[in-house]
């Protein structure tokens, strides 16, 4: 039927295209203009303002450091969890359900949960005190303990963000045909070899999606850091929020937004190139 009326597919996708254009492209263009103009004329003054700000270098460094540490750990944990759960027969659904609980918790709530654990009067200090490790309240989240603060934020992020990676990887693992593994087993391949040579290459599309999703989200990390680190641990989105909300300078906030977008796009492109997926395996 579509042969007679070739415009039908276009008509059908028109609403979604129009919707995206209206609610995504228009604000995007406005944001870029807001970032690159000053009093109605094109200008780099806002970008200069951003780069020379005291928190700019720190926020770039913190955001990248967090991404570099958090994403590989999450992928490794998710792979391990996915592989383990694939061996489980009964109760598999329950285990998956429990593992995905952090997915249902909002970022800020997750941050507050970890804050109640790690703050001075929190559960962690109570535990250490009852074990006799510390004699009085120790602070983990202050500007004087940057390493503890970084570890705390990384742990909270790993706790919160691993579930989504695991869901994607479990979906990928489900698609790996059993026959391949059985054949390899017959030819004497050990579990490690089977994992490296068969499973990993076959779940490459899932891995690619998971990496892109997680990395982009890691560059946009905000609420957990805001709850735990406040102004002690500036990150890019946090700075955009500060410029918009506290300093009421929408232009500098817009430059941050554009910068975050460029970084996310670049990361996505790198993954698409680096983890090339055979076009025939695309959905």
């Amino acid at each position: 039927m579509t042969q007679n009326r070739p415009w039908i597919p276009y008509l059908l996708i028109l609403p979604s295209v129009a919707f995206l254009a209206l609610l995504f492209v228009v604000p995007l263009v406005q944001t870029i203009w807001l970032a690159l103009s000053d009093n109605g004329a094109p200008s780099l003054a806002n970008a200069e303002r951003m780069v020379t700000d005291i928190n700019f270098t720190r926020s770039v460094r913190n955001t990248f450091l967090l991404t570099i540490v958090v994403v590989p750990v999450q992928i490794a944990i998710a792979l391990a969890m996915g592989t383990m759960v694939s061996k489980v027969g009964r109760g598999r659904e329950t285990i998956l359900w429990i593992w995905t609980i952090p997915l249902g918790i909002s970022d800020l709530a997750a941050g507050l949960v970890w804050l109640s654990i790690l703050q001075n009067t929190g559960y962690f200090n109570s535990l250490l005190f009852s074990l006799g490790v510390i004699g009085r309240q120790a602070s983990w989240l202050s500007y004087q303990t940057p390493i503890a603060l970084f570890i705390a934020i990384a742990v909270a992020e790993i706790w919160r963000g691993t579930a989504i990676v695991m869901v994607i990887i479990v979906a990928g693992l489900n698609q790996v045909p059993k026959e391949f593994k059985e054949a390899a087993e017959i030819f004497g391949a050990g579990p490690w070899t089977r994992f490296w040579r068969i499973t990993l290459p076959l779940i490459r599309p899932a891995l690619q999606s998971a990496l892109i999703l997680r990395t982009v989200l890691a560059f946009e990390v905000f609420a957990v850091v805001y709850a735990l680190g406040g102004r002690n641990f500036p990150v890019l989105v946090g700075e955009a929020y500060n410029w918009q909300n506290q300093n009421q300078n929408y232009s500098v906030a817009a430059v941050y937004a554009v910068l975050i977008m460029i970084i996310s796009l670049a990361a996505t492109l790198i993954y698409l190139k680096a983890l090339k997926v055979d076009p025939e395996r695309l959905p």
Partner: protein
Amino acid sequence: MKRIVSLTILASTVLAFASPVLAQTVFVSTQLRPIEEATVVRQDLLKDAGKVDYVVEEPPQFAVRMEAEAQAGKHTVSLVGALHGELSPLADRGQLEPLDELAKKLAAGGMPQSVLDLGKLGKPTQQYIPWMQATYVMAAKKEALQYLPKGADINALTYDQLIEWGRNMQAATGQPQIGFPAGPKGLMARYFQGYFYPSFTGGVVRTFKNADAAAGWEKLKALWAYVTPNSTNYDFMQEPLASGEVMVAWDHVARLKNAISAAPDDYVVFPAPAGPKGRGYMPVLAGLAIPKGAPDTAGATKVIETLTTQKTQLLTASKVGFFPTLNVQLPPDLDKGVALLAGAVTKTQGSKDAVISLLPVGLGDKGGEFNKVYMDAFQRIVLQNEPVADVLVKQGATMAKLMTDTKAPCWAPDAKSDGACPVQ
């Protein structure tokens, strides 16, 4: 049939959303936001003000909403209640209705002219009606008093005495016991503008980078050795005070109130310390204003009149801890915590060396960036230990640019200026 049902649902939904807007005066406020305080406003303070829909909004969202309504030309808000500094950008853009009639009535009814004049925001007409006021004080647990240096009068502390007090407390307890609200939502910037700078330099903008300021920052670094490093996470000092994380704290009265009202016998409340140029302090003023194009000016006027009666003003003080703008005596049966706070406010205002620091006028929407100049200086000098002189030169240049951009003239305690306030 199905169609009729869905039409009925649609119609009732529309009515449900439309009717309160039509029938009630919408009052948007950035003050008294916490649910307990908002309930007091709805149930007690606005009881005699007719049908009012009291809506609270965070300050940034408030600015966005007012701008959006002005741009769209579709007004739902009839009355706004906000801080002096939040109303100033609206007045700058000519979005507020002049309220001179009302101001005249209130002047006759006992509101001091000096307070009313602040509501003009430097313009010829009355932009807002002063609603309630507050300030910042220090609070300490009574058990901290034993460490107070010998001969020190808690109501006339100096910075040197505060430092010594902090040192004594740290020596005795093993932990820094002084706290400041330097967290992301704390009011630390006000400490610099209303307390630190006036006390050490006698100015706020003019004296930003002079030798007195440099000496003051050195003193603050000395004090900071006895300030808990968690201060950069604190937004409201009532929480660390109540949980026992700190013994001594500086903050806005409304942000200390919960801890002190809950256990008034455990605390002393006293003025902030004095520096070489006196005891700086900053009054906080919230005002009521009617936006241009408001759908219900008459209702809004009635609300303003209700909130500025003597009875409501006293009720406001005892229920939420903001003090009257009318010239009235606080009743003796006031909430004990509020009475303690009020006592400290009176002591601050009455102290011989008081240096009043007025609210900035003419910064428009640059108030946030003005705060950032002080907070950046604080972060670099105190937290990152950068050389004081370098930081002051760099931040001073940012300040000078901000002042030339906004053309804001100097305000007290700085000496008056022709044109933009200079950084000397």
